């Protein structure tokens, strides 16, 4: 990322998308706090974060893939089917540990297959994962579960407790924070983390520099699939059920929205966990405020869509196409 791309503002303020989104989030936060009674309330703020915790967790998985210049459109399908299978196995009498192990193995297998398709077979990520999403759903419906909604048994106390609260803070929020810290440390300070940036920035150069580009790509999808499985378990625990129809919903676009909104460019190689947090918080504030305002469903979609559009416009102004992106192309 060159200095000219980020330092466009005057007086030291960097006009990055992250800053702009953060500023919008701050404005909304102040506005809602003043105008909406009950918004600036500890319990409401906690529920605000809890409601976007799952989205944020998925966002971190997606963010890692996007930084490596990939995209995982199968993430929500992986989440839904691997967890649904786990819960179905528990219902069939498997032990919780065994069921979780098998679900995790399924998610990992999906990640490895996608990684191999992208890295070795060299299918563009967008097509490989889109196709995989359909395959996972179809295979899952055919072989793993026969119902859309699978209920978690009442006596499954351990699995039910992972979405309780600790000292008044909902556990999903804590899982999200822990994962964010881990992902931050991983991306900043480990060799693999740095490799992802190098690969995302310039794949060919990374390969010349001796980075094992293909295995690293497989690892990216493995990580996003495993994170998806974790997010699925938390959701299942929270709702005491899994609904596999979410695999066919637009949720994966919400995940991409969180990533792109925060400023992780789809051209790869830039951004980090902070961007995902900023994106997640803006969506959280928006959704919470609109719910308190009792805004109709269609209106909420229009607002979300407009925000995404503004983010993309700002992104293209702040990070204009240059020689490098023109040569590399988008994902």
């Amino acid at each position, binding site marked *: 990322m060159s200095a000219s791309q980020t330092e466009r503002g005057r007086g030291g303020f960097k006009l990055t998308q992250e800053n702009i989104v953060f500023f919008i989030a701050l404005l909304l936060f102040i506005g809602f706090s003043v105008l909406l009674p009950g918004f600036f309330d500890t319990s409401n703020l906690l529920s605000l974060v809890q409601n976007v915790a799952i989205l944020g967790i998925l966002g971190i998985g997606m963010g890692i893939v996007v930084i490596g210049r990939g995209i995982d459109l199968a993430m929500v399908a992986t989440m839904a089917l691997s967890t649904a299978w786990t819960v179905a196995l528990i219902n069939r009498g498997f032990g919780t540990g065994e069921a979780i192990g098998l679900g995790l193995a399924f998610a990992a297998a999906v990640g490895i297959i996608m990684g191999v398709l992208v890295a070795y077979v060299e299918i563009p990520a967008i097509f490989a994962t889109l196709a995989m999403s359909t395959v996972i759903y179809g295979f899952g419906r055919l072989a793993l579960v026969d119902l859309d909604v699978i209920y978690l048994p009442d006596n499954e106390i351990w699995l039910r407790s992972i979405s309780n609260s600790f000292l008044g803070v909902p556990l999903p929020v804590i899982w999200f924070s822990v994962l964010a810290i881990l992902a931050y440390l991983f991306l900043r300070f480990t060799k693999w983390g740095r490799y992802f940036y190098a690969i995302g920035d310039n794949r060919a150069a990374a390969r010349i520099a001796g980075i094992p580009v293909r295995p690293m790509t497989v690892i990216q999808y493995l990580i996003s699939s495993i994170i998806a499985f974790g997010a699925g378990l938390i959701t299942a625990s929270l709702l005491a059920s899994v609904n596999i129809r979410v695999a066919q919903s637009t949720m994966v676009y919400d995940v991409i929205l969180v990533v792109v909104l925060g400023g992780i460019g789809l051209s790869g190689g830039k951004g980090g966990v902070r961007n995902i947090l900023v994106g997640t918080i803006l969506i959280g504030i928006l959704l919470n405020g609109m719910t308190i305002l009792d805004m109709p*469903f*269609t209106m909420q979609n229009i607002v979300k869509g407009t925000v995404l559009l503004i983010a993309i416009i700002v992104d293209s102004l702040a990070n204009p196409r240059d020689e490098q992106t023109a040569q590399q192309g988008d994902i």
Partner: protein
Amino acid sequence: MKKFIGRTLAALLAIGSVSTAIADQFDDGLAPSYYDTFKGKKVVFLPLAMSFDLPQVWAKAMETQGKRLGYDFSVRDPNWSSDAGAQALTTLITEKPDLLVVHNPDMQVYARLLQRAQKEGIPVIQINLKSVATTDAYVGVNWYEVGLHQAKMAVDACSPAAGKSGKIAIMQGTPTNPNNAITMTAIEDTLAQHPDIKVVSSQSADWDATKAHAVASTVIKQNPDLCAYVGLWEVMDAGVAAAIREAGKTGAIQLITNGGGQKPACDNIENGTFNGYVSYDAIGQARDLTDAIAQVLQVKAKPGSQPYGIYTPIKDISRETMRANSCWTMEDVAAAPF
């Protein structure tokens, strides 16, 4: 050799007795033609998707009836895609089955195709979700009635006259969906007569429990004295229930929902997750549906010329009114004599 002759004789006797059984169908003036009507007929079911309880129950009932009466039964599963459903319907019109049973994704999408099928001479029965086109029969719930019952439960539970706050919230599915639109009209009509009841939130969660959870948790925190949540489908309302549980308000906030009355619903009423439940009893609907199939195939009217409806009797279930047979299981369906 002795054994062989014995077996052959026994086999011949068995064949003889079967053929006599058919030949000797007691003629009460109707029975022989009744059984003849169904032989070799082709009945096709086009559901929304086969992955949830309602279509599975109806399909099982038709399969059982098909085996008993000798008609061929098959399912075309479009798996929630109205495009795939419309394509299947178009193909079916050229295949000309003897009867189509259709579960509509919304009021409009199949309407013209259903009329075309009837013009081509194929009778059509619609199940539980009726399109704007009226066909040979509609078997299913009257969504307006469901809304009236749910709204009445909410009013009874929350009336300020009984010392309650009068505040209720509504969790909608997809506003454009026919059952959503019709149920909401009923709820609004009822609440218009009860100005003391205040709707503090009426949001949509697109039939998705996760979204419902997010919305409900915010609404509950905003309205500490909320008295009841009216939800429009039990599966989505699992999310509302989770939000109520989290807020530690189980029982304090009444959750009133509706559904087909499968066992998990009664479990949820028993454990206090659902406080009021309007059941449209899918196993009863299955019986209505198989009866409608028998009727349409026997009467052989010109398709579309004599439409009729069988509106499902609904029952309100609460912990107080629940009985051992209030809900059904898939085993009940498998054992039922359709």
